């Protein structure tokens, strides 16, 4: 068989070669098909611009290389966003699970290393968003019961070393105080002045407790607290203030009952039975006397009306 380099003389091969050439020409003239193929090709080229499989050589590497950089940057950003999103998701999930399990996040945080470090520095609560949220809830609770939580009027929630000595205020309770550790001399002196000057209404003498308007109590509760009670300030500072409540009778009947003296006279003592031996003759005589005396006293009691010995006063 002849080698192709020396010329192809086979008529069959020539025939097919001519047919192949003719087919190439036919397809080359099909503009519509070529246009459709170009759309596919363009899409593939755009895809190749962002996927750097094209070898970067000499001056042709411009668009492909920049496309690859954009692709890498976008991929890194997407990965970072996904990482943070998953991280926050796990954090939220963990918090909700703790709450569902009945574990106090505050107690959990106290056990954590961060909280221990804060405790060493004198901080009670760490300064993060979770505890800020809890402190807001605590402020709300304190505002609901101001007479019970005078010490906690939003001051401890802000007592950190970073803010120590600063003037802090709670917008809900209307209480303003210096942020020193509770009980320290500085805190007492500063807050004494502050209490006297700016927040006298809570420790005011006179009938009833004056509730600041900023305290979150309903008008009914404020009226009840203000009308029959008298608050006494026993300590100079707000954190030492102890409120004693004296109940005064409100109606005429109660006042009349309260004016009557209670009958506190003790019941006359009844002689006890003779303690001697029943075999002795004197025992019988003593026993008879005792029985007579007892029956006499019982008859005397039966003559009196059902008057109570002690009158229970309404306290």
């Amino acid at each position, binding site marked *: 068989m002849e080698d192709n380099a020396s010329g192809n003389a086979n008529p*069959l091969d020539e*025939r097919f070669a001519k047919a192949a050439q003719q*087919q190439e020409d036919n397809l080359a003239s099909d503009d519509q098909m070529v246009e459709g193929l170009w759309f596919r090709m363009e899409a593939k080229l755009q895809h190749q611009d962002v996927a750097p499989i094209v*070898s970067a050589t000499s001056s042709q590497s*411009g668009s*492909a290389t920049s496309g690859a950089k954009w692709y890498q940057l976008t991929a890194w950003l997407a990965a970072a966003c996904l990482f943070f999103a998953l991280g926050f998701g796990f954090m939220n999930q963990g918090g909700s699970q703790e709450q569902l399990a009945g574990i106090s996040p505050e107690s959990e945080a106290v056990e954590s290393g961060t909280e221990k470090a804060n405790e060493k520095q004198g901080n009670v609560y760490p300064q993060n968003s979770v505890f800020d949220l809890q402190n807001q809830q605590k402020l709300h609770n304190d505002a609901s019961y101001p007479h019970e939580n005078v010490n906690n009027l939003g001051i401890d929630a802000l007592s950190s070393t970073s803010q120590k000595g600063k003037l802090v205020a709670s917008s809900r309770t209307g209480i303003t105080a210096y942020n020193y550790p509770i009980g320290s001399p500085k805190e007492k002196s500063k807050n004494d002045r502050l209490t006297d000057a700016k927040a006298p209404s809570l420790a005011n003498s006179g009938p009833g407790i004056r509730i600041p308007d900023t305290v979150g109590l309903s008008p009914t509760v404020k009226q009840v607290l203000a009308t029959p009670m008298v608050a006494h300030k026993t300590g100079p500072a707000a954190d030492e203030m102890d409120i004693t409540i004296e109940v005064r009778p409100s109606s005429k009947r109660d006042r009349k009952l309260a004016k009557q003296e209670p009958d506190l006279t003790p019941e006359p003592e009844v002689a006890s039975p003779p303690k001697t031996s029943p075999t002795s003759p004197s025992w019988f005589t003593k026993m008879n006397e005792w029985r007579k005396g007892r029956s006499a006293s019982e008859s005397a009691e039966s003559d009196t009306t059902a008057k109570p010995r002690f009158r229970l006063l309404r306290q």
Partner: protein
Amino acid sequence: MTAPQPTHPLLKGLLAGDRAAQQALFQQYAGKMLAVCRRYMGDKAAAEDVLMDGMLQVFSKISQYDGSGPLEAWIRRLMVNQALMALRKQQLFFVETESLPDDQVPSSTASHLQADELMGLIAKLPDGYRTVFNLYAIEGYSHAEIASQLGISEGTSKSQLSRARNMLQAWLAEEERALARQQATNY
């Protein structure tokens, strides 16, 4: 003697990665190269895939074109290589057959068949026969080049070519007989 400088008008834009130049080159050669791919693959869809990959190779390796030959021949060579790679992925299998002497190859051809019908006969050939026939009869490669490119021996290349020719000749003869019967019935 200095190497010839590439002189194709689109070459500058292609080297710069210009999309308009790429589109112009594609519109100029895509039809011809699709015909090449169809001859080797025997399937339109597979041929289009090979064309896309081959054109990507052209755009990415355009800087390797040294201008020693026509740009079309360089693109055709890339396309043929791409088609052979695709066939290799499809487990191209060559059956060792004895080569037939030239005198046993019938030389009669059915002259009435159109180009597309002849190409359809090539597409019906087995992969090995078709590949060697395309490389030898249409592309003009020698048996040594085919053997080197496909990783087979020259004898295998020759035998594949002989079998391909016989098969094509038999199909053409059958077409001749069918045409003669049709003409006889018309008269």
